[in-house]
């Protein structure tokens, strides 16, 4: 209930906002899946010559004033004695090439969407402290941040759906035990709870291990609220006269559950899913930011943001803020989505 109010009336022109939100999310998820092909470099490819390099300028007009259809760029060279200040070396132009083969032994697909000839590098969103391409790391990082949120929320809602349906339909001591336990889980601030669970698990893990661990922990921590809501929906549907009537006509428990009760609960679960995913994306980012999620060199938006804890980085190199911008967009889009699902449900019901 509380959550529903939050997202009410996010943006006025509903259709447009829905299309924008869904489009944005689809683009990001596809980007994350296709990171191997879309990212010009691997997430761990360093270029110590170009640390904190600003986003490259793509040019269409050369020094002679001639216009080129194919964009090109110049190599940036760090000014001696002025770290972080780059000047273009106009001696040679490097045109942007598409579908370029990657050198062997690098992370990612064998053919990349775009790239430039070595020794030039194409840093569309700049580089970080080790000269790693921000765009590539953003795409690879989205894999961790976006999918851990999705999987964890899916896990939490699935657990919640199961626990809620069982508690609501079976009732009795099982209901009592489940509901009291859920109150315990809700009695803790979620980040504290998350940290507590994380605290007792091993700290040094391989990236895939810590990714799965994070998903499991988030899912295990978050089942309580969906469970209570689903139980409420099950109970309210169960108490309705139409359920009583269906039983009177000879409907079995299974029939009633399938035809009358679960359709209500699934709607609730779906709304919860749309609200939990962004919360869990944020949770993953927070955990990785605090050094409790995936570890370097594997990127997550959280570890990328961790560099900004040194405030001079943010002040001098604004392109490092990209993960924060995308993160905000993701959360906003999910909120919009949740709002639409909730409205649809209400319209269908009343």
């Amino acid at each position, binding site marked *: 209930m509380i959550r529903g109010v939050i997202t009410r009336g996010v943006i006025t022109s509903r259709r447009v906002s829905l299309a924008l939100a869904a489009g944005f999310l689809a683009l990001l998820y596809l980007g994350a899946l296709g990171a191997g092909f879309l990212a010009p470099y691997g997430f761990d490819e360093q270029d110590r010559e170009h640390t904190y390099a600003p986003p490259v300028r793509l040019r269409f007009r050369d020094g002679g004033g001639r216009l080129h259809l194919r964009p090109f760029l110049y190599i940036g060279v760090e000014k001696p004695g002025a770290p972080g200040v780059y000047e273009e070396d106009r001696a040679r132009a490097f045109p942007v090439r598409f579908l370029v083969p990657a050198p062997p032994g690098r992370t990612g697909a064998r053919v990349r969407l775009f790239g430039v000839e070595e020794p030039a590098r194409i840093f569309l969103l700049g580089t970080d402290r080790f000269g790693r391409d921000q765009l590539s790391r953003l795409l690879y990082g989205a894999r961790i941040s976006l999918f851990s949120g999705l999987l964890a929320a899916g896990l939490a809602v699935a657990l919640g759906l199961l626990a809620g349906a069982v508690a609501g339909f079976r009732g009795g001591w099982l209901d009592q035990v489940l509901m009291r336990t859920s109150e315990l889980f809700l009695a803790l601030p979620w980040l504290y709870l998350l940290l507590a669970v994380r605290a007792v698990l091993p700290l040094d893990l391989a990236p895939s291990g810590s990714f799965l661990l994070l998903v499991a922990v988030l899912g295990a921590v978050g089942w309580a609220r969906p469970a209570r809501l689903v139980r409420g929906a099950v109970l309210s549907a169960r108490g*309705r006269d139409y359920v*009583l009537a269906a039983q*009177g*006509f*000879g409907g079995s428990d299974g029939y009633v559950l399938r035809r009358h009760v679960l359709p209500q609960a699934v709607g609730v679960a779906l709304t919860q899913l749309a609200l939990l995913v962004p919360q869990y994306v944020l949770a993953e980012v927070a955990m990785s930011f605090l050094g409790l999620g995936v570890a370097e060199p594997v990127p997550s938006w959280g570890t990328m943001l961790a560099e900004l804890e040194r405030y001079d980085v943010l002040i001098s190199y604004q392109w490092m803020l990209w993960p924060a911008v995308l993160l905000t967009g993701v959360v906003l889009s999910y909120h919009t989505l949740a709002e639409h699902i909730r409205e649809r449900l209400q319209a269908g*019901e009343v």
Partner: protein
Amino acid sequence: MPENRQPAEAVNPLEVRDLSVCYRGVHGEWAPVVEEIGFAIGPGEALGLLGESGCGKTTTALAIPGLLPANGRVVRGSVRLDGRELVGLSERQLEGVRGAGIGLVAQEPALALNPVIRVGEQVAEVVRVHRRLPWRRCREEAARALAEMGFADPGRIFASYPHQLSGGERQRVTIARALVCQPPVVIADEPTASLDTAVSVEILALLRDLVERHRLALLLISHDPRVLAAIAGRVVVMRAGRIVEQGPREEVFRQPRHPYTESLLRRLTPPTPTDGADPGSGEPLLLDVRGLRKTYTLRRPFGAKRAVDALAGVDLAVGASARLALVGRSGSGKSTLVRCLALLEEPDGGEIRLGGQDLVALPRRQRAAVRPGLQLVFQDPAAALNPRFSALDAVEEPMRLQKMEDRRQRALELMEQVGLPPALASRPVPRLSGGQKRRLLLARALATRPRVLFLDEPFTGLDLPLQTQIAALLLDLQASYRFALVLVSHDLDLAGSLAGEVAVLDGGRIVERAAPADLLRRPRHPASRELVDAARTLQGKMDGVVE
């Protein structure tokens, strides 16, 4: 405000002329809701406005003090309060009129008072905003107004919160609030709709008293002619936004000129009394209930358990083509009884014999096989139909569960028989009207060809003409489907007109059983007498006028 009142005797306190109101729909089109209505109310006069729901009577009540919602607009006409034109006044000017010039008595006293403010304060507040007196004086005025409402202890009422008062007390408070600034005009929109009969009678008597004492011009709005008959001197009948008839009450009620008025006034015609089942008349016994009990345990958090006997040993015999009404106050156990009889709740003791077989003793599985033969038509159709279903789905469901043949065909036939055209078949349940949902419930209950049909308050929330239609439909259906009809109602009048026999429930027992006419004439048990009295008080006034 009082100083705005003009002394001229010739001017009526309230004059409505040629008033038309439009509402804007979702697509921006304007639809007329009230068209060219006009009436006047003199001092000390009560005018009754009669009409079905949706006829525009509430819109009229809102339009007079300028309270139309944002999508409503007065498009034509005038409303004069003591000669002063109200249409076109600014919101601020209207705020001065409301409460001081026109008092409003709300429809739903349970909802009309702010739950977190003491009711005395809510009355005093009206004095404060209109007269700008010091709070102490305002409270004195409020206490005076409350004292006039016939409370035994106005002091307690003053300091109470709404939830601490009964429905009747709350309605008296809203009347006090409407009258505290002594407005010349009072509008009461269905002031008794949510109250039970005895309290309604008291409230109406109070209103009549106040009209006389303060020379009020009262506009009383109701769908129930009996309510108007109690106090209105003149009656206006509205239909579809227009006035179809108006005149002195006696004239309109005794010789309605318009056929619509006649249909509103026509009471349910009792069926021929002989075909009601008489337990001694040799008709085969279908349902035989003996010593049925049901106890609910109420459990409060941190409180002791409390056992409530909803049924304390009910004995009941129902013939195969009976038409039996179960009546009783709310809480007398009648809903529990039909739910137990329809096997939707498990009784704690006793026997329910259907054709000689005791259903209570049957194992679960066998009982489930009997259930489709005992159908309950639920009281609230909105709760008894899954909002995700279409009308056809709802009727088909029982047949699907019973694995019957030709479901679609039969469902459409059933819908037709209860008066639902096939065009409605695919319409989602939430988009049906109240009357249509009720018909759909009937169709669904008949789908399994039950031997007994139980109806829980089948007429609540329906207008009088609709009640008549549904009652006639029930009789038709009984004739063609041959089931025993058991009907639950709190309204003796209504139940008696349909049933061949009435059983009175009180405290979980059947205390009296008689033919409706006998019961009305000579109730033996105190509980029956109470019901009969309540029915008579309103009916008596009606009868006095009509017959």
